[in-house]
């Protein structure tokens, strides 16, 4: 086939073009022709198709996402907001922290190892592109039923891929989640988060300004992997009738990425770049158009200078390739030699592929012939916007009316005991150490807390002991029952987890995993969840710094539960004041903070004991969450508590079991006045935590809670080698440990 140049396109307006196969709709194709005043060339069509895909353009979601920019709480910490590779917040002492969560769901279903591995690689490059040294990763994961054969196919590969890539990069994996639910059977969720740290003056932005500045592509050679990954994979539902899409998944090389990180950090240190962008989804199409669009507009690229792994690639394929471990930098001419020297030191290939120009067009040439001549903004930022129809699903009322309160409750102590063991040993409530022990949590030597703690925490300054904490949470069952409340519960839980570790929550990132936006039911869930999250962030004072939307998470007609995953970032002035979850000191007093109601809708108990999902999720009181957070942070700073664990899925007994097993100590519990044992143990009321208090601090702690109006109840003492609920039952730690620790290994080893 001859080269489809701009000139040729102008001369052949009626040539047939495969816009449909590239995932474009008819009106979108018409709009491209209108923007250009002619038909697009093959290369231009490739660029528009990937950049206007759901994954890159957020065309279905952006009308809802704009709330995150409108309902912004007053917060002095924000340095860079939504729209850049990742948001940046001030954490004090001149440090800035950037963090983000992204999805790599569809690739991980097709090719679990590589899909998950490149998900880690992509988010790490996003963080790096802001000028930050990546310091930790987290991985919120969701799989189908634990005992389903396909879960056995995807889980070991996904876990090995995350470990294989992240471990080789030298980034501690400090948190995340593992959730099983049949709704994720044909569509596991692989979200990946990363935290990076830098000094304020080192923040870098993705922009290409200054005519004459060079465009340098560096990192791995470009190959045929991941071509069309963005448009074909992320924006369509899986369908058994089409040929296998395996080649569309990218292949990762973590060694190359490690070199890219160190090389890039050295380049930053010498202040050699004017703008920088990582290459991820949509590859060079995205990097060149976004850099040019955010700068003065003009850029000229000689595409034939791009180093290739496969010399037979066409220009369209080079533009669309999602080969991993590549970055694109804008460098002033006088810095080019030094830039190249540093790349050479790290054995990283670097090539000047073009330069910033005076004009306003992105122009791409192939062996001297022009194949792209577009306004970059039209590619990168002016994609279509859809106002998708949405409506409350017809089944929502019936689902909410199916109250979990009517489910049969345990009749006596023996039955309670049996249900406790069943709960803590169920796949969702069991220990995840078989998975998390496949990740390096120690590398870099700054890890203060990691799984199974409530939040991961890393030190960022060795002199002052300044640190940051992060937790990620999401509960699809709650969100299915009520997406608005479910999104706020995810936010509240993540916020509570960070506060329980002793850190002050500052800001959030989110990964919004939903079904097809073409389904009005799903779109309603999305609209409700984003509204809930935006309202919640406004009330808690934690702005959304950025995030990711993953749609089309369904197999055939069945959508996943709406699954907004929220990552809260917190700061702690002195990591030596951190609060772990372990009950480690005999004789310390256990206090339950917050109010407990009969709330079982969407609960772990209703799932494990009755396989039930119905009713309303627990109520949210964000004012209470804020108060609880303040109490937990003050108590940690002033040395009033030695351990804290948030209460969420599984309720009090789950939290106490985890804390006892972690500390190797038992507990004697007394059901407080006004509660029955069942509600005490299994309710999932929000805004609660359990803390372990040295006896010498009891009075001071009680006074603080009383003065601030937080209800607390003394519920027991750390003691012995069993968990005893007075008058009901007792279970030896060894029996709890056997139930809790062995489940995942039994399923997947």
């Amino acid at each position, binding site marked *: 086939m001859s080269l489809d140049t701009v000139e040729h396109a102008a001369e052949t307006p009626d040539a047939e073009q495969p816009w449909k196969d590239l995932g474009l709709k008819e009106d979108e194709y018409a709009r491209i022709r209108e923007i250009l005043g002619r038909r697009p060339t093959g290369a231009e069509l490739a660029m528009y198709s990937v950049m206007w895909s759901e994954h890159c353009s957020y065309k279905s979601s952006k009308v809802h996402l704009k709330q995150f920019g409108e309902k912004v709480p007053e917060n002095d910490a924000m340095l860079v907001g939504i729209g850049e590779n990742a948001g940046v917040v001030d954490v004090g002492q001149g440090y800035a922290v950037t963090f983000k969560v992204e999805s790599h769901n569809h690739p991980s279903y097709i090719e679990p190892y590589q899909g998950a591995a490149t998900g880690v690689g992509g988010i790490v490059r996003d963080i790096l592109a802001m000028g930050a040294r990546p310091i930790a990763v987290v991985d919120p994961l969701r799989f189908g039923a634990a005992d389903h054969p396909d879960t056995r196919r995807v889980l070991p590969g996904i876990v090995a891929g995350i470990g294989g890539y992240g471990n080789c990069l030298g980034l501690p994996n400090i948190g995340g989640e593992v959730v099983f639910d049949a709704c994720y059977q044909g569509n596991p969720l692989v979200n990946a988060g990363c935290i990076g740290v830098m000094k304020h003056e080192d923040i870098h932005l993705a922009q290409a300004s200054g005519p004459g500045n060079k465009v340098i592509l560096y990192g791995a050679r470009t190959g045929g992997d991941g071509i069309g990954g963005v448009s074909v994979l992320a924006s369509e539902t899986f369908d058994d009738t089409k040929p296998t899409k395996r080649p569309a998944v990218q292949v990762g090389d973590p060694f190359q990425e490690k070199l890219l990180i160190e090389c890039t950090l050295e380049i930053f240190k010498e202040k050699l770049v004017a703008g920088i962008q990582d290459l991820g989804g949509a590859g060079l199409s995205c990097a060149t158009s976004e850099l040019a669009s955010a700068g003065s507009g003009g850029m000229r690229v000689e595409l034939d200078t791009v180093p290739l792994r496969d010399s037979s690639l066409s220009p369209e394929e080079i533009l669309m390739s999602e080969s991993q471990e590549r970055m694109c930098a804008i460098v002033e001419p006088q810095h080019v030699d030094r830039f190249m020297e540093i790349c050479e030191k790290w054995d990283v290939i670097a090539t000047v592929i073009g330069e910033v120009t005076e004009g306003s067009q992105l122009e791409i040439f192939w062996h001297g012939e022009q194949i792209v001549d577009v306004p970059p903004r039209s590619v990168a930022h002016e994609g279509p916007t859809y106002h998708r129809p949405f409506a409350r699903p017809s089944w929502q009322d019936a689902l909410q009316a199916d109250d979990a309160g009517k489910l049969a409750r345990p009749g006596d102590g023996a039955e309670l005991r049996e249900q406790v063991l069943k709960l803590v040993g169920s796949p969702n409530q069991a220990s995840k150490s078989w998975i998390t022990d496949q990740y390096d949590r120690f590398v870099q030597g700054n*890890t203060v807390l990691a799984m199974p703690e409530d939040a991961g925490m890393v030190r960022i300054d060795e002199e002052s002991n300044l640190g940051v904490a992060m937790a990620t949470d999401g509960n699809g069952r709650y969100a299915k029952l009520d997406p608005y409340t479910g999104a706020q519960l995810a936010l509240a839980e993540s916020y509570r987890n960070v506060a329980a570790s002793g850190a002050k929550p500052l800001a959030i990132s989110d990964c919004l995993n939903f079904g097809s936006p073409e389904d009005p039911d799903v779109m309603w869930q999305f609209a409700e969840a984003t509204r809930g999250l935006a309202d919640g962030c406004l009330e808690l004072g934690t702005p959304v710094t950025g995030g990711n939307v993953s749609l089309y998470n369904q197999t055939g007609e069945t959508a996943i539960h709406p699954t907004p995953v929220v990552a809260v970032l917190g700061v702690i002035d002195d990591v030596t004041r951190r609060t772990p979850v372990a009950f480690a000191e005999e004789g310390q007093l256990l206090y339950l903070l917050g109010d407990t109601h009969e709330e079982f809708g969407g609960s772990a108990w209703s799932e494990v004991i009755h396989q039930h999902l119905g009713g309303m999720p627990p109520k949210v009181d964000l004012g209470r969450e804020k108060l609880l957070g303040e109490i937990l942070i003050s108590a940690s700073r002033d040395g009033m508590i030695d351990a804290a664990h948030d209460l969420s899925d599984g309720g009090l007994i789950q939290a106490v079991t985890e804390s006892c097993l972690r500390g190797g100590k038992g507990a004697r519990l007394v059901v407080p006045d006004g509660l029955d044992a069942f509600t005490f143990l299994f309710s999932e009321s929000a805004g609660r935590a359990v803390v372990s208090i040295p006896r010498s601090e009891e009075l001071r702690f009680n006074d603080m809670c009383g003065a601030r109006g937080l209800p607390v109840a003394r519920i027991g003492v750390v003691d012995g080698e069993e968990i005893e609920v007075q008058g009901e039952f007792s279970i030896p730690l060894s029996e709890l440990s056997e139930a809790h620790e062995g489940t995942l290994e039994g399923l997947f080893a």
Partner: protein
Amino acid sequence: MTARIGVVTFPGTLDDRDSLRAVRIAGAEPVSLWHRDTDLHQVDAVVLAGGFSYGDYLRAGAISRFSPVMETVIEQAKAGMPVLGICNGFQILTEAHLLPGAMLRNNHLHFICRDQKLRVENAETAWTSDYTAGQEISVPLKNVDGRYTADERTLDELEAEGRVAFRYSDVNPNGSLRDIAGITNAAGNVVGLMPHPEHAVEPLIGTGRTDGLGFFTSIIKKLVNA
């Protein structure tokens, strides 16, 4: 005098900064060494840190062993310079034939990261004199190719000469023969082990124990008293 201890960075080394920090905390002067250097910058001892040098794509440590810095390290180690190989560093030392045996893929085939209990078997090497023989310490372990192996004759020799420096003591995490976690050469200046003492030098960080600090204080005492 202050001891100068070098830490080598190969492409793909991950725990170099941690090892430099451990050297500093123990009281010596940390010196960063680059894989392309043949000059060791007058260091008194060298640490080969953990990681995945060259991605470990061929065989762990197989490429690094041929880097310019290793030519000098091998020569100096044979002349008595103390060398500690941690994890990937241990793998490099076996590839370089400074220590016998080899590391295979863990018997369960997974990467494993855990707080590992070790028994110090030889407290007379350059890197272990601050411990006592039989002492139990806890340091992080994290690797995928950690299963120590050697032929029976070599293993018998190591045992007979007291050259098994560390054994796994709570569980054997990877199927290493005779529970071997680390070994020394006959002279006691070259020590290699799979677990990571450099991750256990500060309270609160990592495992929250400082059981690994002894490696670094041992070598500093030896160098300063020399």
